[in-house]
């Protein structure tokens, strides 16, 4: 059992043009991708075309940000879901009397669409420091304590993934079988992972609360930040280009330019 699916939330501190980009711009672009992919959801109206374009751009950005490998790990972890989506469409072959061509189109298009969807968020989280995510949220007028909770959640996801692995290792080492045997038994054995996990999470949250109090969390109303977001000319130009492309995509949708395209 692998927890690689959570790799998509692990931030790696490397210096690339993508990492240097203002997180607000990155969030904006992620939202653009997301909206466009959602918008083009009808068959034979460019769903596949748009999803493919989006995914190509996303892959390019991920490659420049040198996080393509982490993304690949996430995809590998999400493989069951992806397969399920594809399979669901193929199952249609037996339920409705529809041409096989359409079924195949659906299977491919929905899968690609889901991948584009998944990558749009990973793009932001893989290349943005958790602290910067917090900065973006405070910029969006989210109260700091909520922003902090969000940041902590992001930061602790990989920590908890490690913890699950550790607990599973400890239980396997005392004779619990996760690798062989029938599925129901293996699933039942997972309950022996949850108890230590919940206890450790509760304990960790108490420890964190103490650490926060020691550091006078929330003592001052107006909080300054070590890292201040700075909007540079590069950020502005990228945001403008992305916005223009986004508006074009929306326009194309309303004018039904892609009507009839896969």
């Amino acid at each position, binding site marked *: 059992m692998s927890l690689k699916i959570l790799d998509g939330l692990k931030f790696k501190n490397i210096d690339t043009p993508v990492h240097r980009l203002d997180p607000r711009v990155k969030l904006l672009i992620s939202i653009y991708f997301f909206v466009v992919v959602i918008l083009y959801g009808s068959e034979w109206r460019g769903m596949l075309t748009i999803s493919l374009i989006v995914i190509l751009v996303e892959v390019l950005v991920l490659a420049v940000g040198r996080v393509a490998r982490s993304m690949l790990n996430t995809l590998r972890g999400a493989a069951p879901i992806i397969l399920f989506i594809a399979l669901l469409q193929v199952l249609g072959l037996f339920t409705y009397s529809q041409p096989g061509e359409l079924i195949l189109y659906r299977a491919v298009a929905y899968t690609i669409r889901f991948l584009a969807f998944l990558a749009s968020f990973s793009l932001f989280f893989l290349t943005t420091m958790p602290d910067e995510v917090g900065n973006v949220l405070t910029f969006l007028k989210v109260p700091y304590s909520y922003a902090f909770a969000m940041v902590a959640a992001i930061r602790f996801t990989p920590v908890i993934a490690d*913890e699950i692995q*550790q*607990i599973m*290792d*400890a*239980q*396997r*080492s*005392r*004779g*619990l*079988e*996760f*690798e*062989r045997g029938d599925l129901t038994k293996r699933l039942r054995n997972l309950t*022996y992972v949850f*108890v*230590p996990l919940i*206890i*450790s999470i509760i304990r960790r949250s108490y420890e964190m609360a103490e650490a926060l109090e020691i550091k006078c969390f929330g003592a001052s109303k107006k909080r300054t930040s070590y890292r201040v977001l700075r909007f540079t000319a590069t950020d502005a130009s990228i945001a403008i280009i992305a916005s223009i492309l986004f508006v074009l995509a929306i326009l194309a949708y309303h004018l039904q330019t892609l009507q009839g395209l896969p």
Partner: protein
Amino acid sequence: MIEVGNVRYVYPSGVEALRGVSLEVREGELVAIMGENGSGKTTLLRHLNGLLKPTEGRVLIDGQDTRESTVAELSRKVGIVFQSPDAMFFSETVYSEVYFSLKMFGYTDAEASRRVEWVLRLMDLWKYRDRSPFTLSGGEKKRLSIAIVLAWQPKYVVIDEPTAGQDAPNRKRLEQLISKLRNEGATVILSSHDVEFIIDLRPRVILLSRGRIVADGPAESILTDEDKLERASLLLPQIPLIMKKLAVYGVNPGCLTVDEALREITSRLKPVRGW
């Protein structure tokens, strides 16, 4: 016999934790794997019951390749006590915590009950049998995690950092327990950077540094050798240190324990009149 043959291990993150480690542990041996934090001690121990499978090379437990068995199967022979005990506890009581593993390994109810009582008395935990494992103190938790593993009497007992976070009485107790296990013929493998704890056990010492074995030999020759210890970022224990400084007065520097040192030093001193 445990055979580790030229094992290289690279973590998925790309960190190469073991760079070609070979060693053999024969039955009845007491082995201490020593080295600084990050030297690969824990990574090596996790190979012994198959939690990690070597990237290159192989690990054989009594001739059985760890890659061909599950961790649960290997654990019957190789019982590992982890550094942090909390990861393994989930039961309501200390008693059922130990009982659970025994049932996992297929013991009958009667045999399992007998073993639970034996091991809890051995570890001085019988009085806590109805308490929740989570309410025990750090030292008691450690003892419970050892008890859980000893209960099924694995042929090889592996303890990762036995003294981490343990106070003096607990260290003493652990030392006595490990000596007792050895006297009863068990094979014990420890990992530690605590030279003062290890020296009294007089084990075979394997020094690990950056994923490589830099020395392997009896405690007498390794724990008195400042150069070798330094390569594993360890300091000379206090008794060998003082004996080394006294060597210019003609004492034998090869002493490990207080008693040995005392005998060696006093043999050269004249008693003061009136005492």
